[in-house]
């Protein structure tokens, strides 16, 4: 019973973060800065929410982080500096684009690698099939006349069925 109340409570709390889009007004004189702001807010994750970037989230912490980004942009900090600032305090978790380091090599290079491996596999498979088909053709040539006729009859019957 308590578990259910807790569950409802959690749902209520969480849903309050979902319900309104985060539409605040952040003024920038420079359209380039505004673009950078949007890009950064899109790529940084809200540390508290259920998988939202800080642009979309209405949570307090997301608002604070957006304000901080705005301040840092106005203070002429570079994108890298801003991102590093966030990672220093919240860890890699806050990056939606994982950094390329040994832990993420599989992530970044895996798909390309598997694509190449898959295509190589296709090449090998087709080559093997062609070899096997040629071999059975050779074998067919070495059948005796009666065997060849029997094979021929069997094949005809099978084709008739299909």
């Amino acid at each position, binding site marked *: 019973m308590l578990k259910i109340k807790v569950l409802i409570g959690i749902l209520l709390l969480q849903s309050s973060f979902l319900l309104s889009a985060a539409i605040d007004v952040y003024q920038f004189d420079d359209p380039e800065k505004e673009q950078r702001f949007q890009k950064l807010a899109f790529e940084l994750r809200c540390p*508290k929410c259920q998988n939202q970037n800080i642009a979309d989230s209405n*949570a*307090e*912490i997301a608002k*604070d982080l957006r304000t*901080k980004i705005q301040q840092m942009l106005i203070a002429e900090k570079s994108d890298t500096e801003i991102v590093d600032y966030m990672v*220093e*305090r*919240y*860890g890699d978790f806050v990056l939606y684009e994982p950094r390329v380091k040994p832990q993420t090599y599989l992530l970044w290079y895996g798909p390309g690698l598997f694509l190449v491996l898959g295509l190589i596999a296709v090449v090998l498979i087709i080559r093997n099939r062609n070899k096997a088909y040629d071999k059975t053709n050779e074998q067919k040539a070495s059948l005796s006349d009666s065997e060849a006729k029997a094979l021929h009859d069997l094949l005809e019957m099978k084709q008739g069925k299909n």
Partner: protein
Amino acid sequence: MPRLLLFIPLLLFIILGGFLWKGLSIDPRELPSALLDKPFPEFTLATLQEPERIVSKQDFIGQPVLVNVWATWCPSCRQEHRQLLAIAQSGKIPVIGLNYKDERDLAIEWLQQLGNPYQFNIYDAEGMLGLDLGVYGAPETYLLDAQGIIRHRHVGVLTAEVWQELQLIIKGWDSVKN
């Protein structure tokens, strides 16, 4: 050889299954502090109850402390308050409060009503110290060692079990010292 290849999907699934099973016992929303084993950030802020008194890191470095992030708008903070009072009374470790993005009057009233376990409260109205600390919601509790290095962070209500855990960590330092 081709026969063995056919077992690869099964093998991959077993590995995947293993990870998923392990995943069931992990909470994906629990974030470890990015500042673990790093010094507590520098700051200069006023205290909650005495707005003229400015405090900084120096005011609590020198011994292990607990820094507790709390606010009146946080319902769980109310839940852990009793445990904090107990810790303060036991005298084992001083508790410093970080009043996070709160209203001064409400916070002072709260402490008057429920009791004050804190040696003093840092009044972080804008949340900027919280940001430097990597706070993402209240309540959070940080365990600092005597040099002001963050050794542990607990997110959520400070329960008796968590306090046991913290005590074990502190005891570990004492034994190293001796």
